Structures are given as structure tokens and as C-alpha cells.
């Protein structure tokens, strides 16, 4: 099976879906780049991280649309186009920018189907960069997926590897509801085996990236890879650690979460988001409510602190959950005695 990067996996998904369905269009800031430039207007970037490179050259500017820096209009135009017959992928360059366009996402796109009496379909994909680790500071680094997860009407995807990234992007484009596709900056260069052909990954189905019986680590996006690292370290000490990659935070696979919690009786939830109203709190509360009797230790959380993301790399490293921090909490959970 070919080994490609997370970035290439998303690009391949977009390319294959645009080849399959002419109603799929891509829009956003510099998704092609170069429009109107003195060099002649050819594609110049393919997105600020190069994820959409080559698509404009293949599909033309009618379908790969460079927009002004105008996030409300990008999100709204995507939503309106989805409502009327296109299948747009609208790029919100950094998820932090949701601050200037949230209305078009949560009051408009997310609510059409419900408030229009079930008659609307809004096949909109919002593709957006999340996460810290590049020293990009407070307004370009946040893991804001909990904010989107709490909105009824949205689906939120947090892929942790290239295989899921491709399959989830293809499913997102084919899906008839508004979907937020969170691509973590630190994962774009991650390599993995990805089939050449198009395939889909079902939403709301968690994946066990490690199977174990002593402890469950539950996570999403980039943090899943840290959890895998910790599980492998602990295996050297003969601890059997299970890792649940929820893959999508909405819908959330509560069955898989509860099944693993009941099996191991010890749970650590790892989330890059700020702690209040995070996925860590939500998942913890689900386990506490439904699997309390099966627990052998308190549910533990490893999250970012209740602070903005600092630009200083040393502070940023302190801010982020790391394999070391996760391992420390995991060992405490393993050693806890009732």
C-alpha cells in the first residue's frame, strides 16, 4: 500500500471527489493563490500549508476559488451554495478565525435542516487547521473543536492519521450535513499507508489504535499519537493499555468509549483543548454517568490549562499535553487503589 503524508491524503481525497462530482468546489483564502498577481495569475500556493496544491491547475479557477480574506462571506457563501445544489469545501484557514464567522456556521448552516422543517440539505465541508506546536501564538493555535462539537447540526471530525484523513474527507464531501474537518498542523507531515482508491470512513465509529486490559486512554486528533506512544512505553513495563481514537467528536461513539472503560476500569482522557467544557470533560461525564460501577479509579484528564496558547515555544510545550505528562497521569491511574 502506498505510504503518503496526511497532507497528501487530504489532497488526494479532494482530487478524487472533484473528479467524481463536478458539484464539488473548493473555496477559501489562497486555496490556489496567485490570483491577479503580477506573475500571471497561475496557482501559487495551494493553501497556506500546501494541502490543496495542484487542484486549481487541474480543475481551474471556477472550481478552486481564491477568495478575499473574508471569512463570514466564505462560510456563508459555502452554506448558501450547499443549500442550493453545490457540494462546497470551504476553507477556514485557521480554526481560530471562527471568531469572525461563527454566525454563518452555527446560526445558519447548522440550523437550516431543523428550522426549515427537515426540508434542507446542507452538504458543506468546512476544512480548517487546528492545534498548537508551531509557536504560532494565541490566535493561530487553538484546538477549538469542543466549541463546534456542542452545536447541534454540525458534525466534527478530528482525524489522527493519513488513512482516516482521506476516508473522512471523502465521507465529509459525500455527507449531506455540514461537517467540520479539523486538520491538525502537526500532523500534516505524518506518513501512513493510504489506499490509492477512494474509500470512506464512517462517522461516529471510534477505532482502537491499541488494545489492552489495564487502562484506557481516550483521545482525538494529534493527541491520539501521544497516547499510542505512552501505551507502547507502558507495555515495556507490562501494562496493557488500550487507546480509543474517537475519530469524530460529533457524532461521538459513546458505545466504544463505555465498552473500553468497563473493560479496563481505569480511564485517562487526553484532549488538547482548554479544560472547561472540553471533550475531556464531556467524555469523563459520559463514563461517570454510565460506567461508574465498573471503575477502579477516578477518571483522569490531561488537557491544556485554562489559558490562551502562548507563543513562546517553552511555554507552548508546557501548555500542551505531552507523552511525559500523559504517562505520569496514566501511571497514577494504574497504581490507584480503591
Amino acid at each position, binding site marked *: 500500500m502506498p505510504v503518503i503524508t496526511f497532507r497528501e491524503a487530504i489532497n488526494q481525497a479532494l482530487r478524487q471527489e472533484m473528479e467524481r462530482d463536478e*458539484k464539488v468546489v473548493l473555496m477559501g483564502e489562497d486555496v490556489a493563490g496567485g490570483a491577479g498577481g503580477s506573475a500571471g495569475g497561475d496557482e501559487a500556493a495551494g493553501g497556506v500549508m500546501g494541502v490543496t496544491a495542484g487542484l486549481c491547475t487541474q480543475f481551474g479557477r471556477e472550481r478552486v476559488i481564491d477568495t478575499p480574506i473574508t471569512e463570514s462571506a466564505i*462560510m456563508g457563501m459555502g452554506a448558501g451554495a450547499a443549500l*442550493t445544489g453545490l457540494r462546497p469545501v470551504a476553507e477556514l484557514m485557521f480554526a481560530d478565525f471562527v471568531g469572525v464567522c461563527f454566525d454563518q456556521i452555527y446560526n*445558519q448552516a447548522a440550523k437550516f435542516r431543523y428550522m*426549515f422543517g427537515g426540508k434542507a440539505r446542507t452538504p458543506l465541508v468546512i476544512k480548517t487547521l487546528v492545534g498548537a506546536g508551531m509557536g504560532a501564538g494565541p490566535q493561530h493555535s487553538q484546538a477549538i473543536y469542543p466549541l463546534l462539537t456542542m452545536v447541534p447540526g454540525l*458534525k466534527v471530525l478530528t482525524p489522527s492519521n493519513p488513512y482516516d484523513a482521506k476516508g473522512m474527507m471523502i465521507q465529509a464531501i459525500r455527507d449531506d450535513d455540514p461537517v467540520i474537518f479539523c486538520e491538525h498542523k502537526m500532523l500534516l507531515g505524518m506518513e501512513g499507508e493510504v489506499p490509492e482508491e477512494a474509500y470512506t470512513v464512517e462517522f461516529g465509529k471510534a477505532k482502537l489504535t491499541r488494545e489492552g486490559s489495564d487502562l484506557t486512554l481516550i483521545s482525538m486528533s494529534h493527541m491520539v499519537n501521544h497516547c499510542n506512544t505512552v501505551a507502547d512505553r507502558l507495555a515495556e513495563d507490562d501494562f496493557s493499555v488500550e487507546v480509543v481514537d474517537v475519530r469524530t467528536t460529533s457524532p461521538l461513539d459513546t458505545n466504544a468509549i463505555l465498552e473500553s472503560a468497563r473493560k479496563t476500569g481505569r480511564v485517562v482522557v487526553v484532549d488538547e483543548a482548554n479544560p472547561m467544557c472540553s471533550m475531556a470533560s464531556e467524555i469523563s461525564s459520559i463514563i461517570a454517568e454510565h460506567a461508574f460501577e465498573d471503575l477502579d479509579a477516578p477518571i483522569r484528564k490531561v488537557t491544556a490549562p485554562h489559558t490562551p496558547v502562548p507563543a513562546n515555544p517553552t511555554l507552548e510545550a508546557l501548555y500542551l499535553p505531552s507523552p511525559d505528562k500523559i504517562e505520569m497521569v496514566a501511571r497514577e491511574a494504574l497504581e490507584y487503589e480503591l
Partner: protein
Amino acid sequence: MQLSREELLSAYRRMRTIREFEERLNVEFQSGTVPGFLHLYSGQEAIAVGICEQLDDDRDYIGSTHRGHGHCIAKGVDVKGMMNEIYCKSTGVCGGKGGSMHIADLDKGMLGANAIVGGAPPLAIGAALTAKTLKTGGVAVPFIGDGATNQGTVAEAMNMACVLNLPVVFMFENNGYAEFTAASYATAGSIEARAEAYGMPGTTVDGADFFAVHEAAREAIERARNGGGPSCIEAKAYRFWGHFQGDPQVYREKDEVKNLRENFDCLKNFRTRVTEAALLDGDDLDAIDAEVLALIDEAVTEAKAAPEPSPEALHEDVYVSYQ
């Protein structure tokens, strides 16, 4: 452009329907039977009808406002279905879950009334992008109140529509008041000048004059359909009621509304114009008045008697599918 007898009758019927619908809702609202907030369109009928009479059901879209009943009726949304929706009944066009401020009918090209001021223009340019991409020849018309004029979304939509040369007619309705605050206070410069700043044609018309609106809209729609890109129309509008029903309107001079109803009534203007020019006679219009009155009567009676949504409806239609 001279309109045919059928076109004139159709326009009058739509305007009269809006007026009757709104005036009756005021009466019913006072009796306490209508849930939620109500923002009436009385006085502005010629604007919605002047443009929507020239739009197609299947390829042309409008985006509306919280004052959206008139836009819906003008675009052909079923009047009884609307009344049922305003009463939040299961028989409403949105199953009772949208209510007055979210009436939508995509089959009629109606993208929804919108309770977020300035919410609709970005959506409308999306409909225009669909029309351009799929080459349907369709046009999108966002209605924008003078209050929404100052929202960033409107500026963003105007710029994007120009940059992408989208088939859009931005229809501004300046009724002089953003809620309880005068447009003269809250809107700097002029709406027409804002259009010019984006390099698109802009014109100002009297919103009480159906024929003036119709002519300006005809030119703008034709330009958009022929690939000429977006344009703006500012219609001076006259709001016969407060911002919402229950607004005591202490910000208006005592006789302001009385003066508007006497001297700036688009329905009276229309009647005078067509009867004096002998295009229609008074009997034609009286007959429509009677039919419309009966229709609204029936709509209210049916809406009051219609069933509530089932408890299950609370959980339905959040998603197309959700595992």
C-alpha cells in the same frame, strides 16, 4: 416598461395579500394567540413584490430578514403554510420549528427569513455561486434592512459578489429605523455610495412606488442574468408598525405613522396610478381585496385549529443522518 393586465393584477394581489396578512397578524397578536416575536412588513410591500414578480421559482433565490413575511409571500411561499408556521403548528412550512423569523421554502427559492441581522447576504451570494457554477441563469436577491447595512457580513458579501462577478441584486430597504434608532444616526454616508465604492451600479428608488422598484429591479436582474455582475438598489421604505409588535414607538413623532399611512402607502399609490391610467378598474382591485380577505380569514382559522407538532418532532431533523 408597460406591464400587462395580468402582471398588474398579479402584483396587486401579492401586495394586498402581504398587507392583509400583516394587518391581520397584528390583530391576532394582540389577542395573545401568536407565539414569539413578530416584525411586520406593512408599508414595504411594493419593494418585495416589485422585484420578486420578476424572479423564477426554480432558479432564482432570495435571502430575507427578520421582517420576512412580505418577502416570502412575494416569492410565492404558500400563504396558509406561512400562517401555520407563524402559529408554530406542525402544518407550517417548516413544521412549526422555524416560526415567524425563519420561514423558508427552498422549492420556491426562498432561503429563509433570518433572525440574524445581516445573516442572509452571505448565503444569497452562495446561491448566486451555484447559479454561476451550474450555469442555471439564476439570480440571487438578498433583502437588507438599513440596520443590516452596517453589519460586516453585508460589506463582505458585496465585496465577494463583485470580486467573483456573481449574479446578485442587493436589495436594500431603508425604512428609516434600525429597531428604535434612526438610520440617519446609525448609517454613515449613503447606501448608494457604498455600492459605488465596490464598483457596482447603485440606484435609489421610492419604495412606495411599485413601478419605480419594478423598473430598477428589471435592469438589475437583467444585468445579473447576462453576466454583468451584482448591483444595488436602495428603496426608501415606510414602516407602518414598530420594530416588533409591542414596540411603543416612543422614538417617533406622534403623527409620523399616520402621515406614512396617508401619504406613502404603496397600495394606494398603485390603485391611483392604474385606475387613472385606465390600466385596471376599481372593481378588479376590489374583487382581489375581497378574495384576499377571505384567504387570510381561512388561513388564520385553519392555523388556529391546526395540530401541534408531536413531541417526537423535538428530536427530528437536526441532521440528515447521525449515528
